[in-house]
C-alpha cells in the first residue's frame, strides 16, 4: 500500500529503451481506471498522465499504473462526502501547470467547481496550446473553468 499515486519528482517520458509491455493489457487497465475517475477525483491526474502512453507502453509506465492500483487497494473506502446544505454558492478553482507534458510541452490545466461546500465537478486536461508564459497557462485554465461554470 502506498500513500500517494506518484512521486512528486516523477516525470513520465516516451522512451525507446525499456522493454515493451503488452499493449492490450495496458489499455485494459487504463480502460478500467477510466470508470473509476468518475467518483475519485484524487486519481484523475495520474490516470490522465498514464493514458497518454497507450500507443507505446513500456515497463516504466506499467510500474506507475501498478502503483495506482496499490494506492487504490489501501483506499477502497475513500469517497466524496456530500452534506446537506442550503448554501448554493457556485465557486470555481483553477490551476495550471506550465509544461506538465514533457513530450509536447503543452500545458496542463486543472479545475474544480464547488456548490456550497460540496464538490460537484472536476477536470484535468492537457490543453492543445503551448503556453508562452505561466500567466498564459493560468489564463487558459481559468477560461476552461469559466466555460464549465456557465
Amino acid at each position, binding site marked *: 500500500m502506498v500513500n500517494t499515486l506518484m512521486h512528486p519528482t516523477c516525470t513520465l517520458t516516451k522512451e525507446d529503451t525499456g522493454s515493451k509491455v503488452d499493449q492490450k493489457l495496458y489499455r485494459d487497465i487504463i480502460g478500467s481506471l477510466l470508470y473509476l475517475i468518475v467518483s475519485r477525483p484524487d486519481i484523475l491526474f495520474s490516470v490522465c498522465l498514464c493514458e497518454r502512453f497507450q500507443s507505446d507502453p513500456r515497463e516504466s509506465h506499467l510500474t506507475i499504473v501498478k502503483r495506482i492500483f496499490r494506492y487504490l487497494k489501501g483506499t477502497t473506502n475513500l469517497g466524496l462526502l456530500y452534506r446537506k446544505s442550503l448554501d448554493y454558492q457556485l465557486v470555481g478553482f483553477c*490551476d495550471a501547470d506550465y509544461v506538465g507534458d514533457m513530450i509536447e510541452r503543452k500545458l496542463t490545466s486543472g479545475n474544480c467547481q464547488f456548490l456550497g461546500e460540496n464538490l460537484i465537478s472536476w477536470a484535468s486536461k492537457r490543453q492543445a496550446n503551448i503556453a508562452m508564459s505561466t*500567466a498564459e497557462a493560468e489564463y487558459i485554465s481559468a477560461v476552461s473553468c*469559466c466555460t464549465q461554470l456557465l
Partner: protein
Amino acid sequence: MKHQLEDYQINANSIPIYCDITVVICLSKNPILHSRTKHIEIKHHFIRDYVQKGILDRQFIDTEHQWADIFTKPLTVERFDFIKKNLNMHFVSD
C-alpha cells in the same frame, strides 16, 4: 452549471473563480489589450466579457489553499492528503 441552477430558481451572481496568479486576475479585469498579451488567442478573451458583466468574479487565493493543485501535478503525501480532505473526500467506515 449556472444555467442549470437558474432552472431550479437559484440565481448565482458573481461566481468567484479562485486563481493563484495576480497577473491573470488583473488581465481579465482590465479590458485593455496589452501588446504583451497579443499571443493569447482571442477565443480565450471571452472571460473578460463575463467579468465585465459581473457574472464572474476573479479572486486571488494563495497556493496553499488552491485545491485545483491536485489535478495538475504530482504532490507530496501531506499536501495530497490535505487537499483530499478539503475536497470533501473522507474514509467511510462501513
